């Protein structure tokens, strides 16, 4: 399968990403207040919470779409200084979206090849000539893309325009596009939203396989608690932009604050 640099597998369990005291607000609306947590190499880290808890905002902070007013983001041992999203891709963070954000006019293969963007660097002139370096680079990356296609079992739809694919497959192609970048950290924003049970099982299997075979660290937002409890190693719980729980699925499940947030609290006199 996709070969990994040895450096990446060196220290499983060491810290890959840490957010320190992140506060983010839009005008008067506070999306995140003083949130801190870490993501360790090789783990599946779930971010859960009720609607509007700030989960997607958190991903957007990690992604560089939002720059928090307060707090720091540390990635791979270095403090980040308000980078642009396209710089962050080069650092090794890839992502899928809550609402599918595929390139609708392109085929499955082209979508996945676009995911290889950070691994290609032939300039315009070489591209215009095509023969030589540009073609070699294209073919080398095509081989990588085909590995992803094999891994996700989407060979049959390789050349189909993604707009024509059913929802579940589109989600899978989007995962493929993110994987094609060979990221160190993969952010999944509700990878199972709107899926039926079989599709959820498939997707869960792919997520666990990605972790095991590629050694990719995964942070995911998901509302299906069964899935979250099954596949994640640690869970962070947000509510109203604040962190209210952090720990293994078992710990979180039995945490009274978390239960209150999800089920509501009885207010007696």
């Amino acid at each position, binding site marked *: 399968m996709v070969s990994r640099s040895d450096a990446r597998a060196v220290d499983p369990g060491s810290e890959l990403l840490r957010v320190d005291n992140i506060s983010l607000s839009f005008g008067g609306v506070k999306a995140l207040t003083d949130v801190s947590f870490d993501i360790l190499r090789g783990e599946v880290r779930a971010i859960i919470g009720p609607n509007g808890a700030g989960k997607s905002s958190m991903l957007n902070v990690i992604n560089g779409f939002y720059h928090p007013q307060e707090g720091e983001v540390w990635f791979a041992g270095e403090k980040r200084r308000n980078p642009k*999203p396209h710089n962050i891709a080069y650092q090794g963070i890839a992502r899928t979206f809550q609402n599918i954000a595929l390139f609708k006019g392109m085929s499955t293969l082209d979508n996945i090849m676009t995911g290889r963007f950070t691994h290609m660097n032939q300039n315009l002139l070489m591209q215009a000539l095509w023969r030589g370096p*540009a073609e070699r680079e294209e073919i080398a990356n095509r081989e990588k893309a085909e590995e992803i296609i094999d891994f996700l079992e989407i060979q049959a739809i390789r050349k189909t325009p993604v707009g024509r694919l059913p929802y579940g497959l589109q989600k899978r192609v989007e995962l493929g596009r993110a994987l094609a970048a060979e990221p160190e950290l993969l952010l999944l924003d509700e990878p199972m939203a709107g899926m039926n049970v079989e599709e959820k099982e498939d997707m869960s299997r792919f997520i666990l396989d990605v972790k095991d075979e590629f050694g990719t660290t995964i942070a995911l937002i998901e509302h299906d608690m069964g899935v979250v409890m099954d596949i994640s190693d640690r869970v962070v719980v947000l509510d109203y932009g604040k962190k209210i729980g952090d720990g293994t699925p078992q710990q979180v499940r039995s945490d009274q604050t978390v239960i209150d947030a999800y089920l509501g609290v009885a207010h007696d006199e």
Partner: protein
Amino acid sequence: MFYRQAGDFKTSYRGDIQTFPLKQDRIGYYLVLAIAFLVVPFLLNDYWVSAVILPFLIFAIAALGLNILTGYCGQVSLGTGGFMAVGAYACYKLMTAFPEMNMFVVVLGSGIVTAAVGLLFGIPSLRIKGFYLAVATLAAQFFLVWLFNKVPWFYNYSASGQINAPERLMMGFAITGPNASPAARYLFCLVILVALAVVARNLTRGRVGRSWMAIRDMDIAAEIIGVNPLKTKLSAFAVSSFFVGVAGALFFSVYLGAVEVTEAFGINQSFLVLFMIIIGGLGSIFGSFAGAAFLVLMPVLLKNIMVGGLGWPTDIAAHIEFIIVGGLIVLFLIAEPHGLAQLWRIAKEKLLLWPFPH
């Protein structure tokens, strides 16, 4: 003779990513090239070259250029006429300043100058999108035409304000000026068109082309993947303007010979090229050719039928021609918004099964 993909197996990725994966398509392509280079030059006369063939070749280059910007990268431009003018005036200045310069170099240089100007006018595209960008490029159109009228240095202080292409030879044959033969002018433009079409195809099938399409389809997701939006949009503006500039240079030097900027490169030209790519098919190399052929040939054909065939007065025929061409454009947009290229794709898909659809 059946059109089939069965049995045409690919054993390498190189074979799979070539421009014409089907052997029959490849043969057809080489056949068309051979006819265009070896047969057509002997059949040409002055009327055909001036009325049909040269405008087709030159507008195909412009359409390729605009299609890269609008079709592939999703940035609408109404400045095509203005950028063609930049190419034409760059060509004129180069021809008069360096009389010994090879015409290929002159045309290439005109393209590069236009690319630089296009880059400049592409900068607003980072902030504004869609119709608003179209209006911004409209400003480029009017500003550039105004500039070439206003600053006498551009037309070498000639009394008429026109620019005239002096005679230039290529391998002993005149390709510009009054003595240029139809075949020489045709071949010069054809060589450039074929080369640029190959370049356009190469750019759009690789990394750069995918980054353009990514910006067009979903700019946020493109950014997440590592595509720098500013760099990508500007590269599309530069490449597109290069093509359009080359088209402008040829339009002036080889086709018209003498140009008055307001007439030759007005807003009409911008719309004409935009219609070409809409009718031909956005985001398709073939569509650029088809659209250019359609909009160049259709008026000539209609005119020949109405004036030559039916003997109607020219002025009435000219008006009816407007009505018909306009009507066809509307009809096209309603019936097949993806243009002639889509019709071609559908025809090919049908042909793959014909005559045994089961």
